[in-house]
């Protein structure tokens, strides 16, 4: 009972002999279900948006530093001394970049003359600290050339003092050698104060990098430098006319963290007195209406009028007999950009319609039919009819008479019939397809005063939202709802814009706009359909707080 028996084998063989034929319309139910599954599989554009947002966010996050302005970098380069004499020993080091070339031989314990500089210009020469004598327990900076240093301003925005600097450990060097080497200044903020230190290289390099992220303990710093009697020579060169004078050299002799004497080498020639204490210069107010520096989020809403055009190609257009003309549509959208001074990246949400005016001519099929006919045709004739015989002189003669009659003759004839079927009537129709597009945007811009000139664009992913119209074919028209459209289409968008800054946060702009679809919007047919659009765009931008 537990094993298969010959009966089981016979039963299997017999049952497998059965044959089944596909009933008509059996496939229809499966096809309907497959279409329903396809619809369910179509990605929701809102989910797509949610997917794109993290991508955009990541781009902002990682791309933000590249758009940082020199001012923002410089603003953190501040060193303020601690302790009771902090007020008089404040040392502010500003600079976009600092290079650390090898210290010339012969200078005792000098780590490196550091080159400091900023790209910006300043009327005021760099000014250093105070001339107060160094005191134990405090980092101190002193310089004879800056007697105007305001001791009451321990924290000052170095961004206000753009400077150039160069390596000039050798005082004989004629003039500043401006460098834009990568920044190597570290500013560790502690509470509201900053400490600059250079523990990295005891021989030839002093690296100061900017981070502001974390503060190494004083002990760490001390351990870096305590064992060596280090001396850091910082040479500062102004960028204006005073910069041509011999540089101010600041030497920080780091016998330990507690004491950081800063001296001016004997060869240093004092720079011209600054017209004011550059350390205490008040922040320069930006131009009214000018963009504030640094990365910022800008929300833009736009509306546009487009002239859209759709191209149809592919073998299905062989019997097209249709002209398409462009049509005017409108679109609108919102974009969120993270902007630096000149470049930005962002995402958006665009809603627009592509339309075309379709003029289809009628399609007719003509053919000629040859018809052969056979018919009986009456022919009038006279027949000689024998009516009898007679004997004349022994000779037999037949008696005849003429009989008029009609004879039917079978004749054939060939006829030609011309047929013409109207396979498709002429039609004028406007087709529309609407897409919800999610663009990944890049912007490059420049500005003058309140005016900005920008180009913004990037790839888009368009989700089909609606379609209306008819697609012509060789035998009629197909409703666009029944045509297989791709749910998602890749495209591109670009527009130039001239913006006017209305205030600190608001801008309005206008400019030309272009957009298009990169791939076929139809699926599974020999018809290729792509739309493009050009037009004018008006936008309003608002900078997020």
């Amino acid at each position, binding site marked *: 009972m537990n094993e298969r028996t*010959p*009966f089981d084998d016979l039963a299997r063989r017999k049952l497998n002999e059965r044959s*089944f034929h596909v009933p008509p319309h059996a496939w229809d139910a*499966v096809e309907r279900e497959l279409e329903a599954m396809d619809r369910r599989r179509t990605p929701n554009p809102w989910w797509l948006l949610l997917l794109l947002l993290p991508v955009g966010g990541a781009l902002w996050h990682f791309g933000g530093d590249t758009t940082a302005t020199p001012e923002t970098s410089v603003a953190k380069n501040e060193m303020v001394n601690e302790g009771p004499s902090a007020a008089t020993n404040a040392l502010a080091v500003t600079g976009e970049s600092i290079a650390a070339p090898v210290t010339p031989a012969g200078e005792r314990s000098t780590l490196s003359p550091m080159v400091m500089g900023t790209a910006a210009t300043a009327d005021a020469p760099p000014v250093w600290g105070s001339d107060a004598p160094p005191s134990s327990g405090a980092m101190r900076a002193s310089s004879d050339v800056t007697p105007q240093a305001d001791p009451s301003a321990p924290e000052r925005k170095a961004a206000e003092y753009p400077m150039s600097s160069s390596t000039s450990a050798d005082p004989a060097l004629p003039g500043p050698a401006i460098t834009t080497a990568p920044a190597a200044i570290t500013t560790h903020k502690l509470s509201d104060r900053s400490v600059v230190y250079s523990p990295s290289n005891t021989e030839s390099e002093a690296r100061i990098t900017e981070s502001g992220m974390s503060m190494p303990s004083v002990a760490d710093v001390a351990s870096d430098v305590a064992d060596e009697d280090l001396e850091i020579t910082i040479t500062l060169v102004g960028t204006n006319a005073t910069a041509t004078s011999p540089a101010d050299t600041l030497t920080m002799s780091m016998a330990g963290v507690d004491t950081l004497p800063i001296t001016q080498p004997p060869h240093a020639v004092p720079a011209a007195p600054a017209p004011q204490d550059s350390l205490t210069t008040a922040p320069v107010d930006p131009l009214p209406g000018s963009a504030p520096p640094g990365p910022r989020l800008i929300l833009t809403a736009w509306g546009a009028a487009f002239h859209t055009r759709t191209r149809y190609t592919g073998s299905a257009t062989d019997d097209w007999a249709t002209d398409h003309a462009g049509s005017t549509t409108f679109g609108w959208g919102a974009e969120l950009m993270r902007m630096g001074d000149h470049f930005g990246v962002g995402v958006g949400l665009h809603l627009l319609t592509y339309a075309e005016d379709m003029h289809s001519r009628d399609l007719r099929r003509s053919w000629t039919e040859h018809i052969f006919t056979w018919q009986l045709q009456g022919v009038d004739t006279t027949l000689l009819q024998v009516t009898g015989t007679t004997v004349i002189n022994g000779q037999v003669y037949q008696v005849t008479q003429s009989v008029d009659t009609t004879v039917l003759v079978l004749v054939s004839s060939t006829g030609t019939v011309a047929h013409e079927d109207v396979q498709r009537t002429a039609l004028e129709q406007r087709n529309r397809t609407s897409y919800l597009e999610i663009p990944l945007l890049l912007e490059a811009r420049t500005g003058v005063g309140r005016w900005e000139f920008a180009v913004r664009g990037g790839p888009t992913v368009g989700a089909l939202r609606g379609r209306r119209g008819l697609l012509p074919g060789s035998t009629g028209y197909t409703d666009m709802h029944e045509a297989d459209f791709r749910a998602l289409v890749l495209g591109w968008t670009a527009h130039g814009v001239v913006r006017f800054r209305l205030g600190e946060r608001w801008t309005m702009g206008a400019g030309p706009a272009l957009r298009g679809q990169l791939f076929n919007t139809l699926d*599974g047919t020999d018809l290729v359909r792509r739309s493009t659009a050009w037009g004018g765009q008006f936008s309003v931008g608002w900078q997020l707080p």
Partner: protein
Amino acid sequence: MVPQSLIDRCIRQERRAQSELYHALYGMLMGICARYQHDRQEAMALLNQGFLKILTHLGKRDASVPFEPWARRVMINTVIDAFRKDRERQAMEGREMPEEPANVAVANAYLEHMEAEDFALLLERVPTMSRNVFNLFAVDGYSHAEIAAQLGISEGTSKWHVAHARSILQKALIAQAMRHERPLVR
């Protein structure tokens, strides 16, 4: 034999290829469904359900597995799933095994010359549970352990159903053979 190119086109969701595959597999799949579900409409619904599963999982199929046996297995599993939902569980453990008729050779001989459709009609007389277990065991080649796992019954119950179905069929075949006075042995 379904060509690989057709399968590939189905994986690419080409509707025409899917239709071709449906027509190619219809006979085999309906053969399975009709054995388990004698109502033709229900069998058709089962077939469509199984075919959709085949299409859905086509891309995940191990290429080393031949297509037809794989599709057959998917269809049988679909049938079993449907059967699980509305079956009437009856514990058959402890019941005595049905006795095999004495003249099995008569039944076998008659079956061999019988029309396939007639035997299918005969199979429909077997109670649903026994018929399905018999189908799984005798026709589709499942073991009792597999059947027990699939249907949530014990192996003993599976064996009982097979014996029960076999007994009913053999008795019916012998009865028909006697009635038609067909030659009983070759």
